[in-house]
């Protein structure tokens, strides 16, 4: 599923280090990839601060090493692709050690051990052990080791975004079983009011959580020594007890909404809307170029336009974003999340709007071009003064649809590390597991924004129609 994972390990070109490196090989600022939505390991507290067991432990490791640490929040399914694309130096996110990962990455010594647990719906009495899940449907993160455990036990694995979604699917009876980390599940059961699910058994294998870096990082030994020290001096135990010792406090659903309504709105105004506006503007200009190329009398230029439109229509936006963000670094082109998002969304708009614009231009009578020609206008002037103003009227309704789609599609860039409104909703929901509540709030915001845009669409249409209706 994750495109970048298909790429060879260590594909990041040598000498690509973006921060200064100390003599022992450790970057002065260690960039750490983490989910930020995986409570209680890596999540945001009610004040929005990134925290959790993995975060505090990594902070302690970095302090001991004497380096600064910078967290790069990344969805789990993109974690290793991002590591390979050199978006950060090391992953601290309950990475479970396995042979495959050991072969591909530099792994640290384990810093915490846990087992898997088999979770079923409260009323389920048929699944009592791991062997009972044979032929059943299991909801798992596709790139997590738990999906391997479920598959090895003979279950049919259904891909999920995260643990909370998996449990939600279980509660709704869409799947029969979830296998996940005992610590994470226990924390979930302690946090949520009526979980509706129960642990039936532990899996036999103990899983060991490790840090992962690109092969040849050269500083794992130093980190390993630090982990051993932190375990020996009780620091690790103190952090462990903080997150797994006592039951976490539970915030109500209304508290969650109250605390996040404003931050979410801020993200909409400072991220989602600017991203929409910028990419729509760039996309429209590019779309005009593509449309004109497609209509060119030069067969080669026309072919290029046609090919571009075909590619954009044929490639899912999510895949395009992944190609740009995780794929291009393998050719030495590294883009920031925002740059990649702007390029991907603009390119997408350009492909769709090009056909709209072309259709609008072709819908005008040929006599309009000829009349412009006879009063001495060249191609460019005719286009600008005569053709495009009229084509705009025809194109506004379909382009408005493109704009509304774009506004909603910006949520996809959350997968390439852009923190826009939807990502903000995920971050807010993580510690309480109230994903539904936050998704509903995000949905409401998108809806309201689209309604406002539709209103302006209506006004624009009226204005443009003034010369065709009395």
């Amino acid at each position: 599923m994750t495109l970048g994972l298909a790429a060879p390990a260590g594909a990041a070109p040598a000498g690509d280090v973006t921060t200064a490196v100390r003599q022992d090989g450790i970057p002065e600022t260690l960039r750490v990839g983490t989910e930020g939505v995986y409570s209680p390991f890596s999540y945001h507290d009610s004040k929005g601060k990134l925290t959790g067991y993995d975060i505090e432990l990594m902070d302690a490791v970095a302090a001991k090493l004497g380096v600064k640490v910078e967290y790069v929040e990344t969805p789990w399914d993109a974690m290793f692709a991002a590591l390979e694309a050199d978006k950060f130096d090391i992953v601290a996110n309950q990475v479970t050690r396995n042979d495959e990962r050991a072969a591909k990455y530099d792994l640290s010594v384990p810093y915490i051990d846990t087992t898997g647990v088999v979770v079923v719906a409260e009323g389920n009495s048929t699944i009592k052990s791991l062997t009972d899940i044979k032929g059943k449907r299991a909801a798992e993160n596709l790139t997590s080791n738990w999906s391997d455990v479920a598959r090895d036990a003979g279950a049919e694995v259904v891909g999920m975004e995260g643990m909370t979604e998996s449990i939600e699917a279980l509660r709704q009876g869409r799947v029969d079983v979830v296998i996940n980390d005992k610590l994470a599940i226990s924390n979930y059961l302690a946090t949520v009011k009526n979980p509706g699910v129960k642990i039936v058994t532990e899996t036999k294998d103990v899983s060991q959580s490790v840090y992962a870096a690109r092969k040849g990082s050269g500083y794992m030994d130093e980190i390993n020594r630090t982990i051993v020290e932190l375990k020996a001096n009780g620091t690790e135990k103190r952090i462990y007890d903080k997150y797994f010792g006592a039951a976490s406090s539970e915030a109500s659903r209304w508290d969650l909404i109250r605390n996040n309504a404003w931050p979410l709105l801020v993200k909409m105004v400072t991220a989602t809307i600017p991203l929409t506006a910028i990419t729509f503007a760039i996309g429209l200009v590019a779309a005009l170029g593509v449309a004109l190329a497609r209509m060119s009398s030069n067969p080669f230029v026309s072919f290029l336009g046609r090919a571009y439109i075909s590619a954009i229509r044929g490639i899912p936006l999510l895949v395009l974003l992944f190609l740009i963000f995780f794929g291009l670094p393998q050719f030495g082109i590294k883009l920031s999340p925002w740059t990649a998002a702007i390029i991907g969304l603009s390119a997408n708009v350009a492909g769709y709007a090009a056909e709209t614009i072309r259709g609008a231009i072709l819908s005008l009578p040929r006599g309009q071009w000829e009349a412009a020609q006879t009063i001495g206008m060249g191609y460019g002037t005719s286009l600008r003064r005569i053709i495009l103003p009229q084509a705009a009227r025809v194109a506004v309704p379909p382009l408005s649809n493109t704009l509304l789609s774009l506004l909603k599609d910006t949520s996809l860039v959350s997968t390439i590390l852009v923190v826009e409104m939807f990502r903000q909703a995920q971050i807010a929901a993580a510690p309480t597991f109230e994903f539904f509540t936050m998704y509903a709030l995000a949905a409401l915001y998108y809806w309201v924004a689209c309604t406002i845009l539709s209103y302006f669409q209506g006004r624009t249409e009226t204005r443009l129609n003034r010369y065709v209706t009395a």
Partner: protein
Amino acid sequence: MSTTPATTDTTAAGGHLVDVEHLRKSFGDHEVLRDISFEIRSGSATCIIGPSGSGKTTILRSLNALEIPDSGVVRIGDLTVDFAGITPGRGGRLPRAQREQLAAYRAQSGMVFQSHNLFPHKTVLENVTEGPVIVQGENAAEAAGRARDLLDQVGLSAHVDKYPHQLSGGQQQRVGIARALALRPKLVLFDEPTSALDPELVGDVLGVMKDLAAQGWTMAIVTHELRFAQQVADQVLFIDGGVIVEQGDPRQVIGDPQHERTRTFLRRVMEPI
């Protein structure tokens, strides 16, 4: 007066403003113009008549370079174009020098279309000033002043700020005429300017054209209005099958046609049933 035609400076009064020699044009296998040659004297009105599909529109469009003839030489004023030398390069586009030559050639004449082709998103005044201001770089206020005079002359001074869709067909066509005149062309081309109009609106448009002829504008008019041709034309060309069958004074071509094809055509137009 501001609405009188640009003086035909390069041509002596009574001389030829336009020389058309051996014009040929085919669309695919269909030869639409077969060796068309004629002349238009400065300040004269030429009416082109003939059956539908005979090539009348193609002749007018050739004079305005909306259609590029396959061969033949046309001189308008001091500008001569040999169409045998005008050929698209690779990619279907004309070379730059030829495009510039044709642009200068096109600027010699103004075109009035059967379906007026006014710009619907611009007001009447803007339709008329668009060419002078945007293309010829005339001062906007000056151009607006001239446009108002022209619109006054065609009887539309009350409608300058309306949009085309608010006007009747006859009014729209008169805006089309003003738009063509505003560019001060040496030659004005009319392609069946009244054919798309309701009968009661035809008179206004023909009246305006009659005035223009009287003012000395050089005009080439494709029309089926034979009475108008008889009153206004200095010369009539009867076209059939892409050739000029008969040409001359309207009293002769319409009043006393020499060719059987001309007589047949005129009979059909005058006695449709």
